[in-house]
């Protein structure tokens, strides 16, 4: 589904990302872990064509992201709060995203109904603008908005951060359910090793911009990761 070739990003002489070759299969649930500055957000920004690669290219379902915009209809993402429109209510925001993705109000509402548990009564019908919600609630809205319009690639940067324990557990279930669907490729990054090992079939560890580990998740994975990061 996603193919990365010779991808590098250099800021002021410093290489922040250097990936010779990375391929993510369709339907895979892909986890990205690494310390601060490892290049996780840089990689996701490159996948979304938000920054320009210094060399190399990203190919999303046969489309080179920096030369065509054809990848946009089947790709969605939530990177951070800058993906939200602060002066809209959550509902308005969902409908807006829906409209961009060819979904009418009823379609969006049907989708939202599936996430009532996840919202925990704190998102819909609050009569508040997104900018006035707490960080955790903003994140919930942003994550669910990325599910609108049946995307085939979903990119979530640090989805577990800022969420309360109940919501984290529910989010894990949601991501697992998405991963079951063989049409959806989910890319998740996290600092929490336990969460990623639980929800992802494949885990890639980035360190200083380079891939240092690429593992298929098994029962030993968590221990392997922990010993890597402890060292």
């Amino acid at each position, binding site marked *: 589904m996603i193919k990365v070739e010779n991808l590098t990003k250099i800021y002021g002489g410093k290489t922040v990302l250097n990936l010779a070759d990375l391929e993510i299969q369709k339907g895979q649930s892909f986890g990205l872990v690494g310390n601060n500055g490892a290049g996780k957000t840089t990689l996701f920004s490159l996948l979304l064509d*938000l920054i*320009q690669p210094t060399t190399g290219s990203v190919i999303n379902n046969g489309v080179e992201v920096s030369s065509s915009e054809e990848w946009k209809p089947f790709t969605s993402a939530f990177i951070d709060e800058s993906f*939200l429109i602060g*002066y*809209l209510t959550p509902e308005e925001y969902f409908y*807006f995203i829906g409209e961009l993705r060819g979904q009418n109000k009823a379609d969006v509402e049907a989708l939202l109904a599936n996430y009532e548990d996840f919202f925990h009564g704190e998102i819909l019908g609050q*009569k*508040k603008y997104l900018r006035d919600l707490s960080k955790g609630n903003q994140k919930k809205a942003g994550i669910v908005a990325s599910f609108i319009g049946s995307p085939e690639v979903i990119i979530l940067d640090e989805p577990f951060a800022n969420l309360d324990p109940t919501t984290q557990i529910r989010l894990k279930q949601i991501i697992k359910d998405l991963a079951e669907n063989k049409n959806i490729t989910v890319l998740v990054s996290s600092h929490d090793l336990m969460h990623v090992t639980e929800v992802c079939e494949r885990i890639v560890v980035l360190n200083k911009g380079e891939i240092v580990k690429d593992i298929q998740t098994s029962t030993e994975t968590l221990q392997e990761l922990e010993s890597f990061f402890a060292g």
Partner: protein
Amino acid sequence: MFKNFIKLEWKAITRSSSFGKQLAVKIFMIFLGIWMLFGAVSMGAGMFFALKKFFPDVDPVQKVSEYLIYWILFELVFRYFMQKLPVMDVKPMLILPVKKDIVTKYILGKSGLSFFNFISLFIFIPFAVVLLFQGYAVVNVIFWFLSIVCIILSLNYINFIINKSDKALFIIAGIALVLYGVHYFNLAPVTENFRIAFYTLYKYPAAFVAPLAVLLGTYGSNFNYLRNRIYLDASIKEKISEVETKDMSWTKRFGAIAPFLRLDLKLIWRNKRTKMQVFMSLLMIFYGLIFYLNDQFSSMSYMMVFCGIFITGIFLMNFGQFIPAWDSEYYSMMMSQNIPLRKYLESKAGLISVSILVMTILSVPYVYFGWQALAINVSCALYNLGVNIPVVLYFGSKNKKRIDLAKSAMGNTQGMSAAQLIVGLPLFCIPMIIYAGLNYLVSLEVALAVLSVLGIIGFLLRKPLLDKITELYRKKKYVMIAGFKEQNN
């Protein structure tokens, strides 16, 4: 303790983002500041002579006393919408060993130095100086001036009370309404009584105690109110009001640009700075009066083109010059979403076109000054519509400064860069040169016809022009995303 507060305040000013701006913007702001100051001072100084000229039989101080009540009402309304108590600044002080009395005094004292208080002072100081030079009694003038200062500060504190409590707002509004009713039905000479009351402040220096008492009273009640409410969940909290959502399904008829149009309308109504610009634009319709009432300008009629472009295109300039920075907070989302950039720009162009239409309709009464006035405004509107919209969108592609929508509207120069200063030149100068040249060489009619035709050609070419501009925005995408992410500019 207060010394520390003052130090903090100084750092807040010198380290604020507006201090670290580009040189060009800084010079422009300083120039603008001096110009405004000069305007206020000359207004204050000129007021005496203007009153003397228009009302030769009445003492100017009497006249000022007569109009003072209107000024007070205006200032109250103005402050009510614009001025907020700076409570948020004390949040970090709450858990530090600082007495709450002192914190309260600090907030209230600081508000006394607010920009709003100085506007009026810059009018009244020169007025008082002129009075002294005109041989008015020194003691009377000084105490009258002090009374005015007390009134200004009282307004400052009354505003905070009515801002905090709806009850106070209703009481004040009720009093104003009753007084207006009494005046309207001629039950009592209301304005006359106010004139006498305010003139007394001049006539008897001892009367100064009355405004002083009002000031102390309003300060005291503010102090008591605030002192007991310095808690995170009471005073020191930003108000979150319930949101009313509107369906706006009427926008559907605009087809593919409807979602963006709806977003833009919400953008404008739900953010202070943009809302302010709409009000300012509507007010600017009166700007033309300066030109049309001034005999000096009738001979240099190319200034009327300036005026016409300005009146009909004020929103085009105010709003348009910051496209797409208005969307900077979520620009990376817009760029990764399934958004046709073309539709996004079309929506902006459509919105500006509507504003030009509205301003043109509002400017129709200028026909009072002759058919030429109407003709100039209409052809300027056409020129704005066809030529200046693409021009302003083109310059928008050079924007890469973030605008935080939640920040206040007053004197907010966020998003300003050299591009904004340059964009004014083509918007105004080109039509003025075309007009002045043709008017001089041929005739007024031909000059206006050329402006209109240029506008219509531009309008017909809008599609290919927008295509080109869209391409430009696409190229600048990465620079814009990176620039809009930078918080401090």
